[in-house]
């Protein structure tokens, strides 16, 4: 009973506070700005999951190995991994658990926040536009998803490239000499700018945009097909 009363009073207080907050801010804030803030918070919270996953993914993708799983002589001082578990195990052994979860976390947060916000705002704007009526219910979400993906990737791509380079470098605990070679995000940004100017920040953008479109199309198609099987009575 007491707990219930406490919960109710907290709920009531939260409701009041948020209502006042809205009333105070509603005159200056459009829905789009609210969506941007929502995207920002969502991006912030999801970064903690995204960062370690992307770290493993980047380590796997950036290795240069030949068919018989030996190192490519031309490049790569990095390790060669058989599979993802191998990669995680190596990282925990040589870099520690902390590195697995924290290496590149800040730059991931910096990337996720604007990208979620851009995605929200772009999708919201497209959904409101008259194009939505012309395209109809099936084509519109499909096309808008891809377009929102592009709106998300183009402005945040320079941050993504810095993040990838940062996470691709290994930070072995034992090796002091190697540790000094590890650059932070700011140093990487400076290095990239010196090497290639602004254009250097957009290397590899085309496959990323192609990926966004393909991913949205396939996901949407499979979703629709599966929902047709699972809930056939909804659609007729």
């Amino acid at each position, binding site marked *: 009973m007491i707990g219930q009363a406490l919960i109710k009073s907290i*709920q009531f207080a*939260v*409701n009041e506070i*948020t*209502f006042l*907050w*809205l*009333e105070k801010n509603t005159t200056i804030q459009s829905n789009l700005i*609210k*969506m941007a803030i929502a995207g920002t*918070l*969502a991006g912030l*919270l*999801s970064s903690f999951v*995204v960062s370690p*996953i992307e770290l493993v*993914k980047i380590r*796997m*993708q*950036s290795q240069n*190995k*030949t*068919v018989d799983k030996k190192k490519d002589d031309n490049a790569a001082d990095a390790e060669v991994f058989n599979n*993802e578990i191998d990669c995680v195990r190596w990282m925990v052994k040589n870099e520690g658990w902390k590195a697995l979860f924290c290496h590149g976390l800040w730059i991931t947060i910096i990337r996720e926040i604007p*990208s979620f916000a851009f*995605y929200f705002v772009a*999708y*919201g704007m497209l*959904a*409101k536009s008259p194009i939505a009526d012309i395209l*109809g*219910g*099936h084509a*519109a*979400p499909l096309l808008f*998803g891809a377009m*929102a993906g592009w709106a998300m990737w183009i402005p945040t791509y320079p941050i993504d*490239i810095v993040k*990838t380079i940062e996470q*691709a470098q290994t930070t072995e605990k034992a090796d002091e000499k190697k540790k000094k070679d590890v650059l932070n995000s700011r140093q*990487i940004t400076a*290095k*990239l700018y010196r090497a290639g100017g602004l254009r250097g920040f957009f*290397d*590899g953008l*085309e*496959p*990323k945009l192609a*990926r*966004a479109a*393909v991913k*949205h199309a*396939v*996901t*949407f198609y*499979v*979703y629709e097909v*599966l929902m047709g099987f*699972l809930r056939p009575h*909804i659609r007729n």
Partner: protein
Amino acid sequence: MKSCISFVGLLAVGNCDHISQQRSPTHKRFRQFSKVSISKHTSSNILAERSRRSNQHPAIYNIRGGDTSTSSTSLSVSATMASLFAGSIGGAIGVGISYPFDTLSTKAQVSTGKEGQQLSLTKSIGRIWKNEGVRGFFEGVLVTVSIRLTILIRIYDICITYLMYLFLMYPTHFSLPSLFIQCLYTIDCNILLL
């Protein structure tokens, strides 16, 4: 994000069984999204709405601010589960098929950070093909795909997105238990597309 979580006709309802006139669930969801984002919530009509709805149960009242006549209070868990399942599988297949593009992009990004000459896109494809075969394009795909299928992480992802959205769009209706229930019942395909 992945993992990014990606976003977003957030307002869809999982429970559209009773609506047969709609052209399709996707269509309905999409229209709802457009409708709500257009509607302006001034403080006066929020007050009115608030008092009108205050006698409804928090768990089932329409937090989305949509028309109550088109959204039922009888929520269906199986619709949610179907959406979650279809979205996870769809997301996993989508990520898997588009993965070679991601590999190309990452390789280009990493080589930009190193000294030496840059490979063009076609040369890069040729080199991966020659050195590593088809598998080279899919290195690391398992961790990315499996995360799409990990139900707990998906729910976390969806709940975070949905909570933030509702909190900011309809702060007057914000209370944790009702939001939690809303989250479980109203998972939408467009959130799962992220």
